[in-house]
Every structure is written in C-alpha cells, then in structure tokens.
C-alpha cells in the first residue's frame, strides 16, 4: 500500500516537473517590456547636462547590434531625441548631450537587424535641459557702486547673479535658470548682457537710474520678476582734486572786463 502511495507521489511529482519544464515551450513567451528608470518625467537637467538615461528591460536580451540572428526577444535599443534618431544602446545606461530646452527622449526595443518588435515596445520621457542649476531661485544684485552714489562721467557697474547662468540671447524661452541681463537706463532699453563683465556707462551730468533685470533666453521676464534698480548721480569732475574751481568767477570777470573794454572804447570814440 505504502509502496503504491510512494509510486503515485513520485509519478505525480514527475509529471509536475515534466509539465513545468515543458510549459515554456508550449505557452507563448512573455512579451518584452521597457521602462525608463531615470530621469523622471519633466526632470530639469542642470548645468548643461549631459542627460543620463537609465532604463530597464524584461524578457529581452540586450546584445550589440550585428552580433547574432534576429529574434523578438533579443536585440538593442534605438535612442531618439525629439524624434531624431541619435544612437543605439545595448547597455542599460545612455548618456546624451542635449542643448538647452525641452526635449523628449524615446527608447525603442528593436531586433538585431534593427526592425521594431511586434507589437512595438518603447518608452519615452520629457526633460528640460538648462545651462543653469537645476534648482534654486535666481538672484541679482549690484555690488558696485552703492545706491545713491556720486560717480564720474565714465563709470562701471558690477553685478552678481546667483542660481542663474548668463548666456547670449536668442535661445528658446522658458528654460529655467538661464538667460541674460537686460539693462534699462532711465527706464529705456539700453543693452542685453550675456556675461557678468561689468557694465561700462558714459553718462551726462545729473541723476540717473539703472535697472538690471534677469530675462530668459527669449527676452521674457522671469516668474517672479527678478530686477534691481540703482540710482546714481553723475558729476563730471568727481574724483578730480581741484582745490578751488575758479571757472565761474573767471567767466564773470571776463564778462565784466569785456564790458569795461566796450565802455572804454565808447568813451574814446565819444571824445573824438
């Protein structure tokens, strides 16, 4: 009896093992999958990148292109940036150099011969690349001269930016933490600055105000607006060591003496 039970059990286990081994050959193989681990959707890639894409696959063998026969469960990954093919990958990490702006990165599993799987297996992620830092609030300040300063005709204004990278104007708008500095002189446009070199001014005498404003690559103001205004007074002879400026008195003396000469000439003519 026990022998029969043992034989029955062994037979059952054997059938289970046999059926388990044979099952993959009978059932359809699980479909390959592809997912992007990093970057996360809409992630801001700071400092100009590069964009490192880490992806994961299942039920798919990654092989170097041209390394074997094509089958639907092995091959490589086609990499697209903004619908433009950029490269292939047979490892789980891709490093992409992308310019500033918003980009869509799409990965597609393909067979060794480059043809897409059926059904197509792909994954995509949108990222924002900026030359600036990926986080932080942009800041702007004027380090020289101080507010209300008296300056000469020629003067320079030094400023500092934080969490913001200055680039030449003309790029796409809406890129965080990068752009340029717009200079308004007496509330009128004066210049756009693409670097932190001091601003050189040559102004006529009198009060002036200089406004510096951070704007994005397309010239639009940031949100919230970042600007700083400096009030200065220009006086031509600032810094000149003139103990006594006799110019106005000399001018008055010239006028009086000139009148005296005219009077003397008149009297002389009258005397004749």
């Amino acid at each position, binding site marked *: 009896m*026990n022998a029969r039970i043992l034989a029955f059990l062994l037979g059952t286990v054997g059938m289970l093992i046999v059926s388990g081994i044979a099952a993959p050959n009978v059932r359809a193989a699980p479909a390959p999958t592809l997912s992007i681990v*990093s970057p996360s959707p809409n992630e801001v890639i700071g400092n100009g990148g590069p964009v490192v894409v*880490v992806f*994961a696959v299942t039920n798919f063998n990654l092989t170097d292109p041209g390394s074997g026969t094509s089958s639907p469960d092995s091959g490589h990954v086609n990499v697209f940036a903004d619908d433009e093919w950029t490269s292939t990958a047979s490892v789980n990490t891709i490093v992409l150099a992308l310019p500033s702006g918003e980009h869509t990165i799409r990965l597609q599993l393909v067979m060794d011969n480059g043809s897409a799987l059926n059904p197509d297996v792909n994954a995509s992620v949108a990222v924002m690349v900026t030359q600036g830092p990926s986080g932080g609030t942009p800041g702007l300040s004027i380090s*020289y001269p101080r507010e209300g300063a008296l300056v000469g005709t020629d003067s320079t204004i*030094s400023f500092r930016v934080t969490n913001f990278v200055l680039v030449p104007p003309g790029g796409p708008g809406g890129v965080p933490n990068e752009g340029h500095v717009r200079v308004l002189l007496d509330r009128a446009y004066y210049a756009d600055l693409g670097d932190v070199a001091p601003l050189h001014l040559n102004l006529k005498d009198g009060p002036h105000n200089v406004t510096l404003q951070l704007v994005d690559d397309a010239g639009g103001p940031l949100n919230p607006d970042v600007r700083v205004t400096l009030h200065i007074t220009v006086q031509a002879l600032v810094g000149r060591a003139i103990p006594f400026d006799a110019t106005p008195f000399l001018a008055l003396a010239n006028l009086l003496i000139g009148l005296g000469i005219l009077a003397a000439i008149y009297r002389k003519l009258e*005397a004749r």
Partner: protein
Amino acid sequence: MRPQKCATTPPARARRGSSMVAVVVLTSLLLASIVSSPASAAAPSLTIVSPTDGALIANGTRALVQFLASNFAFVQPGRVGQTGSPNEGHANVFLDAQAVRLLTDVEPFSLSLTSGPHTIRIQLVADNGTSLNPDVSASVHVVATQGPGAGVPRITILSPTRLESTGHGIYVSYRIENFTLVEPRGQPNAPNEGHVQLLVESHVVMEVIQSEPVLLVSLPEGDITIGARLVNNDNTPLNPDAISNVPIHVVASSAVSLPLVSNGGVTLLLAFILVVLVLRRRKVVGRPPNGRGGNS
C-alpha cells in the same frame, strides 16, 4: 530471535524500505541546503578603487571610477527566462543620490562632475532591482574643480607699475597662477577656481572673470592704491589671501585743466586791453585840445 527474524513480513520490509528512502531524501535535501545556503556562501563585497575618498578631481575633468566586486556575478537584468539567484545581479550608481548608471559589468566608467563636493555611491542589487540583504554598497566623497589640482593661487599686477603716474582711467593687467577663472553664479566653492575682484582704496569696484587687462575709470586724483584679489565663487577671499596691491599717483588730465587755464588767460588778456585803453584815455584827456601843447 529466529522466529522474530522469520516473522519479518513483506509489509514490514516495505515500511523499512520507504523509511530508508525517506532518510536518504532528507539527508540529500539537508546536504543540498547546506551546500546552497547563502549563509555558507561568501558574501558579496564591493570596493571603489578610484577615486579615493576625498580626492580632488581637477581641471574640470571627468571622474574615472574603478571598482571591484567579489562573490557577485554581473548580469544584464531582465533577460529572457531570468530567474535570479543570490550573488547575481547588477550595480546601480548614484551621484549625489541621483541615479546615473546601471552597470552590468565591472568595467570602469566616467562621470561628469560640476564644481564642488560630490558623493559617488555604487550599490549591488539583485536582478529584480532590489538591494541585497544585507545591503552591499560603497561610496566615496570627491571634490571637483575647474582649477588645477595643486599649487598656491597667486595674482600679480603687472601694470600700472608701483608709484606710476596715471590718468583717471587706466588699464590694469595682471598675471594669475594656479587658479582658473569661472563665472560666479552661486555655485559651490571649489579649490583653485573663482574670479577676480579689483579694488580701489580697498573698496571692490569690479568683479571680472577675464585675464585680459581691465579698464578702471574715474579714479580719484592723488596717491591711491589699486588692488586685485582672487576670490571664491561666493566672493570670499581665498585662504591664504591672494591679493596684489600697487600704489599709483593719479594726476589730472589736460582735458580737465585746459578750460581753467584758457579762461584765466582770456581774463588776463582782456584785463590788459582794458588797462591799455584806460591809460590811453587818460593820456588823451591830459593833452591840449590842439594837440600841440603850446600857446596858440
């Protein structure tokens, strides 16, 4: 005894046989479990060989990371029919907690680093992406800089020279050693990189990132001192301070003094003409009406 031996019946033999089979199976399972037990297998280990902890990654270069893993087989995750087994999987690489690599081999790799301190961490994970138990990871702290890796930063003003007489606007040229100029934008400080502050009478008047001569304007007249200082990205002085000072003498330009001189000259000329006219008038008044001066 004999009758007992003879009393061994077929069912009894069957029971004894099945018992032996059970003992053999159990023993085999026990041995198998001992052999395949994770506790008996050497635990995976991971070591980062390069860069060393605290290393300085200089000149803006990429960090080349070399590591060693033992008792761990690197395989591509997600392969067809992959069942996973202990001591098998891949490695995740994190740069400041951001995933930057998925490694399926022990080949060295390089990372692009921004200026400042960073942490590079490598973690061994199972095929399904879960961390091992216990966790196996290694990390190093590095500092990246655009500047050189060695040498004391130094700045020297080349022009103007000491006690030179200059006008109100001058070009200041300087030489920088062991230091790289980078645009300050709020990034962390890093060794041997930063920018230049120009000082007039110890007051910062300009901050520049150029090695070309810089124009200073509206300098105050007289004996003054101009300076150039290397500073960190956050405008703090280096340690030790790297500064160069030069005393100069600023004199008024002719453009300033000329109006004063010309005005004074004109005044003198007009005064002279007036005096001449007045004297001639008096002389004319003092003469006789016929102009001969004698009796008529």
